[in-house]
């Protein structure tokens, strides 16, 4: 799929990558409830056999579940960073007060 990353997202992921040497970092696109399609950045998460590769940057691979993949991959999208105050969730970047987002590319 056409998956891009903003410079801000690349810098953030590189920083978190450097803080976690020796760990595997992956993003799995969330599904449902409070986070819905937000990217969830996790350490040493075991990717499942049904998960599909969407793209990658800065040593971080992005996957979607079998159900989410056909939906998300049909939309050219960009991973960005937004003000995360009050966003919550288990994604590794939330403790910095920011939140990764997945949005359709404009146009």
């Amino acid at each position, binding site marked *: 799929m056409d998956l891009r990353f903003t410079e801000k997202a690349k810098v953030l992921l590189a920083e978190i990558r450097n803080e976690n040497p020796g760990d595997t970092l992956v993003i799995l696109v969330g599904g449902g409830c409070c986070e819905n399609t937000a990217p969830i950045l996790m350490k040493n998460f075991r990717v499942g056999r049904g998960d599909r590769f969407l793209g990658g940057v800065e040593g971080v691979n992005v996957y979607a579940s079998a159900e989410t993949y056909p939906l998300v991959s049909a939309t050219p999208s960009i991973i960005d960073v937004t003000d995360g105050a009050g966003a919550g*969730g288990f994604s590794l970047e939330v403790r910095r007060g920011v939140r990764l987002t997945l949005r359709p590319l404009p146009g």
Partner: protein
Amino acid sequence: MAAVVRKEYDQFIGGKWVKSGSGKTIDVLNPATGELLTRVAAGNSGDIDAAVASAREAFVTWGKSSPVERQGVLLEIAERIRKRARDYAELETMNVGKPIRETVNIDIPLAIDHYRYFAGVLRNLQGTTQTLDPTMLHLTLREPLGVVGHIIPWNFPLLLAAWKLAPSLAGGNTVVMKPAEQTPVTLLELANDLRDVLPPGVLNVVTGYGPDAGASLASHPGIRKLSFTGETTTGRLILQYASENIVPATMELGGKSPHIIFQDADVERAIEGVMIGVFLNQGEVCSAGSRLFVHDAIYDRFMEKLVAKVKGLKIGDPMKEDTQLGAIVSREQMEKVLSYIEIGKKEGATLLCGGGRPADPSLAKGFFVTPVVFGDVRNRMRIAQEEIFGPVVSAIRWKEYDSMIAEANDIAYGLGAGLWTETLPLAVKTAKALQSGTVWVNTYNALASGAPFGGYKKSGFGRECSFDTLLQYTQIKSVFVSTAEKPMGLY
């Protein structure tokens, strides 16, 4: 006088307020104003260690408490909330952004009732006995598990805490809870109100970020059960942690629930049901009836009436008694909801109303989204498949029953489903055909203590709110008692 929020909350561990080892705090906002409401501790793994240690120590006594004692405690918890019901409702509204009429009439009364329900049913927690042969009696004991870990979401903070805390305590367990970092206020207030009700360490509340406090709790080797309500991928992560410690877990995850309108539906009631289904709590409900299947014969008339009603919804300050739609919980969540409006339009759905920020300048700093109805939706569109968790309903026109049922079930989730018809056999047939943990017939989003709630498929497993829930917070001990008077003669 409006309820008072403290300027800052520490962690509640071992019956005391304790500073977090991290020394850091998290800003908690009022989503209706975007302003700071309070600050809570940014708990870390050291805080979780202390909380679990305190809960383990408390379990030594609490785990042996009598059913009569636990019943008294649960009834007293209900009473403490009832005495401050208005305060709790206002605090929940200020913290979550949901209308005060909802917290007054739904969140708080249902939470109170939950403690009363489990106070009652815990007296029915019994084992079985059987005579296996003339000299062998067998019996089962229902025993508590130990320390249980709870991770609570932000949409119904006090109510969903009750869903987990009440059965845990009823079963004789002690608890470490991590509320959502953006909506911790009512649970922290409850912990404070129960200082003279619960022995120290029976309830511990650690606030903090998911990857810090949440992950530390979910992976802690001292935990004997996990219960999580939240997002599906996070549920998978928590299950991986649970597998490390071989502990059971209750998972209440996402949904994208079908809501089916048959051509003989009572239209007035059904329209109200649709609105309860998707605009209650701004649609931030895991069982929201956000995929609306309307029969072709009444589609145009139904949608016209629905849109007229939705346009008339009172959106605004959630503290006002007549407000029907409050604020989305955070800026990030609001932006996500708005992004789906663009996705839906690009997919070819028709935006029939809403989908922007309200014009009222007094709401500009809050996280408000005008309520959305999409028409001409097809079931494989993203707005029909992905849980938006906002005030957005996607309407699909249907003609043929079997293909409609196939589409209703063509989804990863199975949390809730609703249907409206005046034909009883059709209602029963459809309720059976839907792959869903709950089916609502001529009603929607009804919840009750005693009615099991939980998911089919990727909406999770385990059930909350019912006697089964209490059983899931216990473990079975099988006891064989021999009354033989002589050796068996084998050795």
